[in-house]
């Protein structure tokens, strides 16, 4: 489904932050991405959610080389990828409801279906009473839950999460991880970047270690 071959990434004319990444993510697989701060986890995720293109090497996604993909093809890929960003990337002028509804609206889903799905998901993440609240009035944990709801509402083929439980208490973190695992069981490819050593122990999956921009596959925690 996703394949990296000798991929490198640099920002502008700066030094390379990812070196010689070789990685294959099969459909329905699940991985943790771990490494110290500055190791390149967020950069690797940005390649995965097509926020950036590799500066060298080959990255294929859904069977197509992203370097030669058209803009409309890239948009199609992005719609198949759900992302929980580390800094949430919510639209501050929209309510929690409208933030979560956005992926469905972009593909023209029926408004009644949007309403039902969004309320259902907000209830699942414990924010059903905050549907009309805008992100600036939410705590970090609440924003994180909205970001998770937005990432999963379109039932993506690939789910990428950058520290998805960083601001959550343990019961809520477990609840969201169970949601991720459930999606994974149904075929969603999962990549979770985390510092939290408890997660891989509690929800075991293979671990990808990133260190100084180099990737090493590791054993399950």
């Amino acid at each position: 489904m996703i394949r990296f071959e000798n991929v490198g990434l640099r920002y502008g004319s700066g030094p390379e932050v990812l070196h010689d990444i070789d990685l294959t993510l099969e459909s329905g697989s699940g991985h943790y991405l771990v490494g110290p701060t500055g190791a390149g986890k967020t950069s690797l995720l940005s390649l995965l959610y097509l926020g950036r293109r590799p500066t060298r090497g080959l990255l294929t996604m859904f069977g197509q080389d992203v370097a030669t993909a058209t803009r409309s093809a890239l948009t199609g890929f992005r719609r198949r990828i759900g992302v929980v960003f580390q800094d949430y990337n919510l639209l501050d002028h929209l309510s929690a409801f409208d933030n979560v509804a956005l992926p469905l609206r972009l593909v023209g889903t029926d408004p009644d279906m949007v309403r039902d799905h969004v309320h259902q998901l907000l209830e699942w993440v414990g924010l059903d009473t905050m549907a009309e609240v805008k992100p600036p009035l939410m705590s970090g944990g609440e924003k994180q839950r909205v970001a998770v709801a937005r990432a999963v509402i379109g039932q993506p083929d690939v789910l990428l999460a950058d520290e998805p439980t960083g601001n959550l208490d343990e019961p809520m973190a477990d609840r969201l991880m169970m949601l991720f695992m459930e999606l994974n069981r149904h075929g969603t490819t999962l990549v979770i970047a985390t510092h939290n050593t408890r997660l891989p122990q509690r929800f075991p999956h293979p671990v990808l270690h990133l260190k100084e921009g180099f990737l090493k596959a590791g054993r399950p925690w």
Partner: protein
Amino acid sequence: MVRWRQRPREVPLASDPSSSFVPTIIGAMVFLSTLVLGASLAMEGVADGWQITGQQYRATIEMSLDSASEETVATSIEVLAQLPGITRVRLVGDDEILETIEAWTGGRPDLDLLPLPVLIDIEALSPDALRSDIIEQILEETAGAVTVYVEPQWLLAVRSTVGTVQLVTALMLVIIALISVVSIVYVTRTALSIHQDTIEIMHQIGAQDSYIAIQFQNQSLLLALMGGVPGNVLAIIIMVILMRELPGSAEAPLLPAVSLGIREWLFLGALPVIAALVAMVAARVTVITSLGRMP
């Protein structure tokens, strides 16, 4: 009860500084273009009244009533039509002659008291084809003595002025349109820069460029209408007042009335809509072009 929920705009353009700038600039441009175009259309109407519009040069031939039998007139028309450079020959009808002289007589004259002359209008693409001495000489054989009234020199000057004014008007409208488009492009680019983060997030979630462009184009359409309609209405009010101040046909029967027909008024009234559509297209093209350069 199902609560009605207005769908939000993902790109919050309504709070931009452009919200006041675009209506002001488009309002001013529509105001100017309405006045300029209105004046041009009114001048065309006046020129029509004097029959000096178009590319044709005209002359009128008056035949002596004694020699103007039907046969003579028909033969003369044939002869005139064969002259080099002549594009049109027609016999002026009695009704048309009566309409023309009403301005002098103040009403329909009694035809028993005022026998009408026989008039033939001819048109040519060049004034050289309308030399009165040559035409009189040619018609002498078929119709005897005729009098040829060639369009006077001052009328030619007016014709040239009308043409120049129309050209200047077209140029001004092009300049006004260009200023409007450039303003919209500038405002749209600024808005794209202001909302870059929002647009990046929307792209990452899977928004197509066209989805984002729709939000910008709708905002431009709305703002242009908000400015264009008042600008247009104000210009039309000024034009109506000015036209009412000018002498009408009762006070100055020899002067063609300065007025606009329904079709011209409708055209002027459509200017804000045209401006809004231009603004909409300019915004869309700017957004699509700019987003196309993003990764």
